[in-house]
């Protein structure tokens, strides 16, 4: 099985020393573990965000980082859809403008795609609102829509369902799952919630004491 993502890096996040080694061919991968264990850092390493780790990162058959050869593909060239735990929507822009964030000229032509994603994530009625008028769950869905609209090659989801109420959890999980299948986009999910992991991942790794360990399917 060829690897979808391969990580072998060391990094320091504040007082936390992480040594992340992971190689997985799963197209739906989850990293779980207690709060503060450094799960989000694994996603940030894949997204190419600071702090800069030392080591090797490859994904989708490409080398994204190789510290020995001084190779590093910056975040803006990786084509990942990173959905951070907090939505970080631009507060002075409408939801629609947030969805077209960074599209430039293409934003004007993105109307139908925006409408479609907004309908699937049940945020169509919110498009002209400012983020401050949205609930936590609504913001989380807008952040997800923002990432999906860029047609990412790899989805990086940080606790994507954590702010959602029970009714939306299942529906949004289904949207993520359907999107990943329809567009053949692999996803890496970080969660402390077993229900998210069960519904969205085929392979589960656990972050424990700064290291990653495969939980299921069990190592042979």
């Amino acid at each position, binding site marked *: 099985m060829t690897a979808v993502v391969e990580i072998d890096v060391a990094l320091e996040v504040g007082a936390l020393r992480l040594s992340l080694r992971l190689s997985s061919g799963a197209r739906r991968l989850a990293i779980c573990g207690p709060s503060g264990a450094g799960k989000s850092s694994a996603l940030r390493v894949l997204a190419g965000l600071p702090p800069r780790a030392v080591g090797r990162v490859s994904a989708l058959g490409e080398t994204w980082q190789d510290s020995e050869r001084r190779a590093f593909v910056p975040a803006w060239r990786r084509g990942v859809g990173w959905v951070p735990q907090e*939505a970080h929507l631009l507060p002075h822009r409408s939801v629609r403008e947030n969805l077209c964030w960074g599209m430039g000229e293409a934003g004007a032509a993105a109307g139908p795609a925006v409408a479609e994603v907004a309908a699937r994530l049940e945020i169509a009625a919110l498009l002209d609102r400012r983020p401050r008028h949205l609930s936590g769950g609504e913001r989380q869905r807008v952040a997800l829509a923002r990432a999906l609209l860029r047609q990412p090659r790899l989805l990086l989801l940080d606790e994507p369902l954590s702010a959602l109420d029970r009714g939306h959890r299942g529906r949004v999980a289904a949207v993520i799952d359907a999107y990943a299948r329809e567009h053949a986009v692999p996803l890496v999910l970080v969660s402390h919630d077993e229900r998210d992991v069960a519904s969205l991942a085929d392979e589960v790794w656990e972050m424990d004491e700064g290291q990653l360990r495969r939980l299921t399917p069990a190592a042979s």
Partner: protein
Amino acid sequence: MIDAAAAIRLSLESALVATLLGLPLAVALGYALARVPFRGKAIVSAAVVGPLVLPPVVTGLLLLRLLGRQAPLGRLLDAVGLPVPFTLLGVIVAALVVGLPLFVAAARGAFEAIDPRYEEVSWTLGVSPWRTFLTVTLPLALPGLLAGAVLAFARALGEFGATVVLAGNMEGRTRTIALAVYALLDLPEGDAAMEELVGVSLLLALGAMVGYEALSRWQRRRLELDRVDQGAGRAAR
């Protein structure tokens, strides 16, 4: 004879130019101090405060030594037709230097208040760091930067010590509001001009206070959401 209107015009023009020249400096220094790790940051940070804590007359004297015709930099400026001592340019330089600490502090505060994750989200959406700076960071910091501009402008308007040392007190050429008021203290017949200058000073100061407060509130409102966001994130992590 002291021309109050000329002094007011000179003050407004020089303060405006000093503020406009200070803007890119304040943005660059404020951003670097807020976001970029570099060696000697503490020294730069302390040096920027210098003109705020030094007696303005001493600041003026140091500027005169740096930009006077005896100094290499001063000779160079003189040679290219930009003499600083006892010229309008001297008024502008003095205003720029004394206003800069307030401008940089405001810019730094504005940038520090922005969660870096806005920029990180932008990068992962395929936007380069430079375009992210222009389209995400600057707009988020805009009210704070304008508040800093108002402070720097007001400080520049009131500048006296550095100006009198570097630019002198020459009617119609370097005599600003503050210098004109000082000159009028010795002239018993200058009461009307004095009243005009003091009145304009008070009005400008009042405008600056109101403007600063309004812009500061706008900045807090603009970033209010991100404070809520951050708080929620911390609780959940």
